[in-house]
């Protein structure tokens, strides 16, 4: 995490690319220091594992009736059935798979758009930077969900469209973060030296700039996954998802439309929302721990009853 070490040494010409801290790199470091990060990663891995194994662990098929309409939880159907007599647990497992695919794919697209714009703007600077950042600003202010709704409504409902619509909403924050980081890394002495040694733009960006901003980019990616999954449920709920796909969002939508509430069938609604919430919380815990580790200002507290610490004066703080 050379981000802060360099700010002290900048200009002295003494620093090279930041040294790898201790064993295992920064990610292991974050995991070792923060329980929150461990829990977050654990939750995410659990849901990813369930999604990968979905065809083998789902107890029933999601296309045939295996129980009574809105039958309550029982040993045969641990989470009851939905309005078509389909096993809820199987729906959750299969739906989670689609929801996660949409979430990750949308984030991937958003990262490519946002990262590309951020790197171009930050690295090139000048008028291109100005133009790209103005465009980003406008998109940042236009409210997300209404924009997604009109695009999805005009474009038609399918999973691929859903992925691109969500990605179109999420690239702005990434673009801003990446741009400001690239701008600061670009001015560092070692980057200037690499350039004077004859390295081309792409080499500098991929070998020297990207590794520097990787932790922040990964934290941002993880947090973006959370928002993407949240948006998927919202758009599906408004009837803008793929009508034939089972996702956590569509489970909530169908429960709402097919009067699960007046039937008293809480099991048709509550588990799906809890799954979404757990995935989002997992993302938040992991992403926030990485971001906190990158921000040394948060380590100082002059009023805290537990840990009264002074602001670090020298680089010794980094060595601990």
């Amino acid at each position: 995490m050379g981000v802060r070490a360099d700010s002290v040494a900048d200009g002295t010409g003494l620093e090279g690319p930041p040294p790898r801290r201790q064993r295992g790199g920064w990610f292991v470091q974050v995991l070792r220091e923060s329980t929150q990060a461990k829990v977050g990663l654990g939750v995410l891995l659990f849901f990813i594992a369930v999604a990968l194994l979905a065809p083998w662990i789902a107890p029933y098929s999601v296309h045939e009736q295996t129980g009574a309409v809105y039958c309550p939880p029982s040993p045969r159907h641990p989470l009851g059935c939905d309005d078509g007599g389909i096993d809820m647990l199987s729906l959750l497992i299969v739906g989670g798979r689609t929801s996660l695919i949409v979430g990750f794919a949308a984030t991937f697209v958003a990262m490519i758009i946002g990262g590309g714009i951020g790197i171009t703007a930050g690295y090139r600077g000048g008028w291109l930077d100005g133009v790209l950042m103005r465009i980003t600003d406008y998109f940042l202010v236009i409210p997300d969900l209404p924009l997604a709704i009109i695009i999805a409504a005009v474009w038609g409902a399918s999973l691929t469209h859903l992925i691109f619509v969500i990605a179109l909403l999420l690239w702005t924050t990434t673009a801003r973060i990446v741009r400001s980081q690239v701008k600061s890394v670009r001015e560092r002495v070692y980057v200037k030296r690499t350039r004077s040694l004859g390295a081309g733009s792409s080499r500098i960006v991929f070998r020297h700039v990207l590794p520097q901003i990787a932790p922040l980019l990964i934290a941002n990616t993880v947090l973006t996954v959370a928002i993407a999954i949240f948006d998927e449920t919202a758009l599906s709920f408004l009837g803008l998802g793929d009508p034939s796909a089972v996702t956590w969002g569509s489970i909530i939508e169908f429960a709402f439309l097919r009067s699960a509430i007046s039937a008293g069938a809480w099991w048709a609604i509550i588990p799906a929302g809890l799954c979404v919430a757990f995935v989002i919380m997992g993302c938040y815990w992991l992403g926030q721990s990485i971001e906190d580790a990158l921000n040394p200002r948060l380590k100082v507290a002059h009023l805290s009853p537990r840990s009264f610490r002074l602001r670090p004066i020298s680089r010794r703080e980094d060595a601990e």
Partner: protein
Amino acid sequence: MRRADYVIKRTFFAFVTIFVAITLNFFLFRVIPGDAVSNLARVPHATPALRQALEEEFGLDKPKWEQYLIYLKQLAHGNMGVSFANQEPVWSNLKTALANTLPMVTLGTVIAIVIGLITGVLSAWRRKTKLDHISTNVAIAFYAFPTQWLALVLLIYLSGFLPSHGMTNDFLLNPTPWEHFKDVGLHMILPAMTLALTLYGQYTLVVRSSMLETLGEDYVLTARAKGFTQRKVVTRHALRNAMLPTTTLIALSLGYIVAGAILIETVFSWPGIGSAVYQAVTQRDYPMLQGAFLVLTVSVVAANFVADLLYFKLDPRITE
């Protein structure tokens, strides 16, 4: 930068954003191939006369740039077209809806900000204590719950005690103004409470982290060394400065408020702009959808503009 320059710059930005939204609106509905409005004229088995009439009504026979100019001109006269669903002018539909939405959304947001400020400040002050852990994780949970799901859960458990549908009781005949006010107020509790709960988590987290940053500043240490009580240091020195990033982030969360309003009004059938959007989506009422998007964008841009001016007032350093 002088004060006037700042205001002019922000005003210019606000107008350009609205213009971008208007243009997006035009492109999405008129220009992209197979777009909604061009499709209107392609009625199967339509007589040439009908097709021509439709093309003339929507100006499809003119070149795109001329259509764009006509669209702008109509908009400048306050004409947003006619709703497909009820044949009323879009603006008169939206006007009532907006008037219904505003009180509910304002109430929910104000409650969310108050709860968020209190819990956020307490968390940061007592950081790493049990109180902090509990309040932060509860906040993350409410941030993670899908809005529509939270609304449905409240509906399941509270619909026996509070009115859960619409804005007024239809069986209340000739109510006095006071009875009407009480009736609407009761109907408003559930939607406003849902909105407050979905928003407050985010605010707590934002307030907490910006408080943590200011609590690490040297002036807080100085204030403490001068012998101020902890309470005074927190409220007078730390909170005042922590409010700066908080204002910006609350302004940026306007998009979430709009999204929340759409989902919550759909669940509780609150006759506001969110329900209007939902109905426009299900009925494919494109003029309404277009109009609603424009109205929502203009409100968000306007609120952002106010926040910008407020920020200017709060932080005199911005002029330097």
